[in-house]
């Protein structure tokens, strides 16, 4: 949103990332040809339905996936110009929780139920910063205060289960912010929360961005959340980026048929009811093969011959708007005439 600083230099760059799971039932092509970058002070929203590859993409960035079954088959992940995929284990450990903070989809993967929140926060701080216990404790309390938890010194002594869902999420944000990361990756951080608590957290993030200017990747399946906080948005479908645009462009002029259908399928809390919801027929794709056609083709109202023959690449249309759809491809603006001929014979 406009209140935030203008994006500055690129801090993270992802080029042609491909991640596969090799399971007993065959391969799962979870991430295919994913490219994007993140600038300091920028909030990049990542939307897509469940199984579209959002989490796997972000976990790949920090090599957090168990291998096997996961394998990053190709790609380049540059953090401040250094390739994460070529880093040593020590370098990776320093990066995780240091320069790159992570909020996981499942809160219990980052909070250990048997230790107090204070212990976990101070340990994280001491692992990455050269400070003593007392300083770490003080810093932990100020972090809790920063994320809006009252009586922070007191609450450091509590265990995770003594916090409500919303407060636990704040603790997670505090942990992720502990070492003042340059990049924060937040995976569905408010999905499990109620709307009034979500509103509190989103307000907190708006404030933190203003004060701290870190780059944030915010994963969600809620287009409403993205509309309220993102600068740019990536839409994922079937393990690929199908649309990438500024938040204004995405909502004012969605180009990909999937994005359009998704927006049309959502009723609005502020608008008069429509007679019938626009529904998207069919199911999301299974990812058992490398995509050889448009993954959305079986559900797309506009699909034509080419869509089932070739996977559309992500191409730039106008004003930095990128779309992976043959309809947007200059060569295919109108279905080529030979194809018509072929069909009519």
């Amino acid at each position, binding site marked *: 949103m406009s209140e935030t600083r203008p994006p500055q230099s690129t801090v993270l760059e992802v080029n042609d990332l491909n991640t596969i799971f090799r399971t007993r039932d065959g391969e799962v092509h979870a991430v295919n040809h994913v490219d994007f970058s993140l600038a300091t002070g920028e909030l990049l929203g990542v939307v897509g339905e469940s199984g579209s590859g959002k989490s796997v993409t972000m976990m790949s960035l920090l090599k957090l996936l168990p291998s096997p079954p996961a394998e990053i088959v190709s790609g380049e992940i540059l953090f401040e110009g250094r390739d994460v995929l070529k880093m040593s284990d020590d370098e990776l450990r320093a990066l995780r929780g240091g320069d790159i903070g992570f909020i996981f989809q499942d809160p219990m993967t980052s909070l250990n139920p048997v230790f107090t929140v204070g212990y976990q926060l101070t340990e994280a701080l001491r692992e990455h910063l050269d400070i003593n216990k007392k300083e770490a404790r003080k810093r932990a309390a100020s972090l809790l205060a920063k994320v809006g938890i009252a009586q922070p010194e007191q609450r450091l002594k509590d265990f995770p289960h003594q916090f409500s869902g919303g407060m636990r999420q704040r603790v997670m944000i505090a942990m992720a912010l502990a070492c003042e990361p340059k990049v924060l990756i937040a995976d569905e951080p408010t999905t499990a929360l109620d709307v*009034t608590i979500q509103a*509190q957290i989103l307000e907190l993030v708006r404030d933190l961005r203003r004060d701290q200017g870190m780059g944030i990747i915010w994963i969600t399946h809620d287009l409403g*959340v993205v*509309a*309220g906080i993102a600068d740019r948005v990536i839409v994922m479908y079937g393990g690929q980026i199908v649309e990438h645009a500024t938040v204004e462009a995405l909502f004012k002029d969605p180009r990909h048929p999937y994005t359009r259908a998704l927006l049309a399928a959502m009723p609005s*809390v*502020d608008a008069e009811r429509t007679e019938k919801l626009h529904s998207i027929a069919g199911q999301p794709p299974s990812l058992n093969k490398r995509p050889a056609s448009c993954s959305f083709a079986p559900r797309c109202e506009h699909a034509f011959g080419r869509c089932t023959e070739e996977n559309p690449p992500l191409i730039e249309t106008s004003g930095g708007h990128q779309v992976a759809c043959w309809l947007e491809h200059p060569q295919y603006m109108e279905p080529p005439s030979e194809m018509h001929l072929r069909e009519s014979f």
Partner: protein
Amino acid sequence: MGAEAILRVDGLSMYFPVYRGVLRKKVGEIKAVDEVSFDIAKGETLGLVGESGCGKSTTGRAILKLYDPTAGRIELQGKDITDLEGDALREIRTDMQMIFQDPQACLNPRMTVGSIIAEPLDEHTRLKKRQKRERVRELLNAVGMNPDFENRYPHEFSGGQRQRIGIARALALEPKFIVCDEPIAALDVSIQAQVVNLLEDLQKEHDLTYLFISHDLSMVRHIADRIAVMYLGRLVELAPRQQLYTMPRHPYTKALLSAVPEPDPAREAVRERIILKGDVPSPANPPSGCNFSTRCPIAEEKCRRETPAWREMDGGRFVACHMVQ
């Protein structure tokens, strides 16, 4: 809603005892639902909204007599069903059904789709095998699935399809009233619309009445005729759709609606949000006076002392707040 009400709920309370220690001594109670009253007209959809843990599901279950309510009265089609037991209860069960949030959890993985849908028929009817099979195929067709799927197992289907199976099963006995408990919460946006459209079509065809429980205020605006808002076990406001969304009166309804993110960056940038402080108190230890008084932006001294009464206002609206005139 007067004479045409198919369901009347009057002062319904459901308290769960809290036990502690080795002797399992009762040390208190959770007021999951506290003095809730409303009517639902025949063919109507009443939306029930509120945050997690506020008592929506418990209300639905108590109405279906899956619990024995602590207090209050439930009337279905003019008949008091509050204290029904045994065969009498079994009989009215055919008129009331429930659709659950997690379609996975309520479908036995070892049973075929056909036998899952036929189960209520086995239990409540004396149909012959062939008639049952016909009915199952009819039901699968009604929910937009291929009748030949009857021999498949639940795991072979997607979330949206499993929810259709759950709906087919709920429809088996031709109920008049269905509690839909977060029927789309576990589904992706692209699948939600399919299920909501199906529920609406079935309602028209079979003259069904719904209690539609949800925390998705946008979807409730689409599907419900009237909406009841719940907070910490109590109803705070109930009004027809248009009135509730365009002119909310209760401070909690206002905050709740203002917190729903809109997929429109221009609107999001200028929207006035009411950010509530703090968390919902525990239903085991609700505040004195108004349940919302610990977070209400306009609470006064009286609010902490006196529980606001559930009052009928103009235009079929009900509100429980001292400050609403």
